[in-house]
């Protein structure tokens, strides 16, 4: 399974990188960690004519935490997120989700930008981006722009990125200390793509839920929020009965696929179970 032939460039600036992508009429691809792109090329499913290695680009590897939330440089790796102790408090949902990503060796190379650009429907990072209403900054030949997650992820392996655009940053909004959150996924084996996953959070207002955000991973063609399940949750106090109801709402709302690992009926039921369990876990977390 040797790679197909391609040209390789390793530019020193973002401008050069964009120019290289722009100059190859959609046949060039950026290379970050390579953990998703390389296997596709090994199977010759992807055969870009040029790989633009982003590793020398400055300023894309930082994790900035401030009043406006968490800003992840596109080349931030999974291990950087897990190593950054500030995120335990600054974004526990992100941290927990990332701890489920793949395996040790992959976490040393895979990047947040690469994961979002690749947009595998079962990846955790796009799920977190959707659930948390992240904003994704990109740079292209037309300049810089910021894309809301809901507009960014369009379908399986499909995003709003133009062929000349490179993700530069993913911005997750500020995370209040009192926020409740839950993350549940179930994969065949540790580190496999989840057959389904649910990320959720909510804030508490006088004992009731407000601002519920529920996102699903690995079900349907794309990670997305579940507004009906969120509506079932908002305005209520969380108890076991509500968790069951929210689970049922989530199960009803998704459009699950059949594949060799799970039937669609099972996946639907799994979504509901994971939503219910994520909600119970969220409620059980003590306030900071």
């Amino acid at each position: 399974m040797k790679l197909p032939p391609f040209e390789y460039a390793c530019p020193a600036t973002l401008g050069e990188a964009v120019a290289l992508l722009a100059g190859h009429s959609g046949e060039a691809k950026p290379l970050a960690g390579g953990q998703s792109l390389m296997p596709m090329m090994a199977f010759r499913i992807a055969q870009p004519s040029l790989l633009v290695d982003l590793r020398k680009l400055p300023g894309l590897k930082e994790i900035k935490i401030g009043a406006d939330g968490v800003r992840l440089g596109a080349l931030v790796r999974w291990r950087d997120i897990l190593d950054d102790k500030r995120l335990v408090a600054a974004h526990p949902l992100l941290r927990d989700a990332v701890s489920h990503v793949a395996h040790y060796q992959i976490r040393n190379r895979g990047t947040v930008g690469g994961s979002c650009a690749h947009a595998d429907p079962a990846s955790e990072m796009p799920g977190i981006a959707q659930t948390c209403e992240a904003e994704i900054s990109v740079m292209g030949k037309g300049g810089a722009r910021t894309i809301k997650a809901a507009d960014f992820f369009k379908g399986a392996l499909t995003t709003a990125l133009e062929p000349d655009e490179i993700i530069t940053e993913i911005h997750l909004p500020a995370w209040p200390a009192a926020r409740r959150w839950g993350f549940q996924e179930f994969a065949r084996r540790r580190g496999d793509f989840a057959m389904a996953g649910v990320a959720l959070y909510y804030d508490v207002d006088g004992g009731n839920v407000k601002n519920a955000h529920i996102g699903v991973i690995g079900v349907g063609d794309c990670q997305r929020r579940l507004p009906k399940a969120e509506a079932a949750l908002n305005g209520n106090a969380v108890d076991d009965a509500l968790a069951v109801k929210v689970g049922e709402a989530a199960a009803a709302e998704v459009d699950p696929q059949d594949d060799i690992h799970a039937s669609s009926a099972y996946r639907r039921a799994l979504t509901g179970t994971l939503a219910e369990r994520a909600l119970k876990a969220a409620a059980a977390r003590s306030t900071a």
Partner: protein
Amino acid sequence: MKNTFIGTPMERREDLRFLRGRGEYVDDVAMPGLLYAVILRSSVAHGRLVSIDASAALNVPGVHSVITAADMPGGPPIVPMRLQPLPEFKPFEQPVIAHDKVRYVGEPIAVVLASSVAIGEDALDAIAIEIEDLPAVADWRTAAKNQSVLFEKAGTNRSLVFQARKGDADAAFAAAPYVRREQLRTGRHYGLTMEPRGVMAEWDDAKGKLTVYGAAKVPFFNRRILSAQIGLAVEQIDMIENDVGGGYGARGEFYPEDFLIPFAARHVQRPVKWIEDRRENLMAMNHAREEECDLEVACARDGTILAIRGEVHTDMGAYMRTNGAVGARNVSQFMAGPYRVPHVKIDSALWMTNKTPVGTYRGPGRFEACFFLERMIDMIAADLGIDRIEFRRKNLIKSSEQPYPIAHVQPTDARDEYDSGEYSETLDRALKEIDWPKLSKLQGKLIDGKYHGLGAVCFIEGGAAGPKESARIAVNTDGTMSVYMGTSSVGQGVETVFAQIAADALEVPIERIHQVYHGSTAYVSDGYGAYHSRSTVMGGSAVLDATNNFMATLRQAAGKRLGCAESNVTLDVDKVLGGGRSMPLKEFAGLTAEGAFLNKKHTYSYGAHVAHVTVDAKLGRIEIVDYVVVQDVGRAVNPLTLRGQVLGSLVQGLGGAVLEDLKYDENGQFLTGSLADYLLPTATDFPNLRCVVLDDYPSPINPLGAKGAGEGGIIAAGGCMANAVANALSSFGAEPRQLPLSPTYIWELVQAGQRRAAE
């Protein structure tokens, strides 16, 4: 000085190179002037091969040539069967390359020779293939309709039916007070090896010598096949066994590539290397285990098994491979397992389908038989209101009944008997290890959201296939000795185990055995190989015979030189003593003697698996809390490596029980084409496993008293897990009838149980 290396948990010699990355596997061997072979494989499951046009590929820079069936005068040779080579199978054997039809996704159509593997792969797309699609046969039921037939001349998709018979089952069923009938199924999986296959061949035209690297398992037999196919005398061919990255029954049989690559080397007069990649391995290495049964068990009301009767249907894939019939044959002969069953009537049909051909995988046919019968035993015991452990105890064969004759299989007239053992003792020990009485209170209980279940099953493992094995001992120039084996290494530690046996027999420190050489055809005159868990028994016994002959030879030579009677000669570490004089052993450098062990009988190691699992009924997730294997191996030569064999094969079995599944769609398209699709166990999947190895009942059929023991861990894993899951989900009335126990399948069983309860 009496040694006791046998029975000692000795650290392995092989490790010294493997741990340093200094193993030499076939892809590690470099050769000047090498061309790399890349194989174009069919992406169509069933079709007429109309044309192949490689002209564009030949124009790709770096491509040397493209070989097809047209380059083989007289047509491509056929790969003959090695085991059960019955005339009925002949129409279904595989040509080494496709010529008129393709019959499975992955079948070789052309071989590209190029200056690099990457260029060879680039060239594949440039080969224009025209195939007329034919309707695909994607399962045995479709095969049985015989509407789309894979082999027109044969006129049927059923290559054979094995018949296992003992007593008069029909009469027993007619009179039986209780009968239970079930349809059960084991899913398709295989002995995937971490090192994919590889063949490198060099043809020396001046010497008329063909050297083939990458041999494994049965190099002597494969050499005979190749010699007949390629038109060279056996003496002109050397098969070299390098380090081998796993076998499990799948690697080492004669595959099409084992002809194609040597043929290519001779055809282009350049050395050629082919290294299988993982995508190929999934669709080209022998598949296994896909069997479906319709089985009846007749019992007395007190739980005594009276008879078993039924049919098994094996999905054989597209061709009869060298050892393809073994699983289907074994499932019929060994359906009764370690139990006393006086009447047996099993018909085992082999169905050709448009899938990768089938061969053996550790415990062939036995894994399936154990799952089928053990599932039924739990169901029957529940029906009759008998404790399922007592049911087993009542029916397990006793030591006083040994040797115990089992079902007779036709064709092949295979008669066999179990050799020795008190089967209930391993069950009792396993139950004790897990503390069954304490755990049994948990059966079916829901605790912290998970259902608890227990499973307990028993197995026998056949080993030590004959007819013969050879070994040779020689004195090296430095006075150490080397052992040359006809058996092969597939990673099981033969270099250490045979050194232990030789050192003990010669009564020398183990360091005096410098090296154990294995597998390559240059080492002994007539070797057989590593399969059917035979290496320790057959190879080890051959080593014993070789040491006897070696000492006789040494005494004869030393008696003359020391001037004493032969009977006075002794070997003392590195010196030969006799008549009051001594000489260094190195003075006898070059002295060598062969030995052999002939054997027509099989050994039967046996044991029990007992498991405690939890099931999350909503996720369909199984977790093992504790799992114990107890196995009696007759005589443990190296307890350290033995534990490795038991636990390693157990995890393979658990993979087949829960994770591994080779899938096709209804058009014969192969769906599990990567390791993200075909799921192998990892370190987090089955952490809580343990084993106890006993050697209370030696085998009477070989001088070591040992029994082949590499397959016991795998054989009962499917039955044990399924029974434990059924026990956990008993409140739903869930009865798993198929493997693997995927999350979807478990969830569906629970759903079905809930629907029944609602009615």
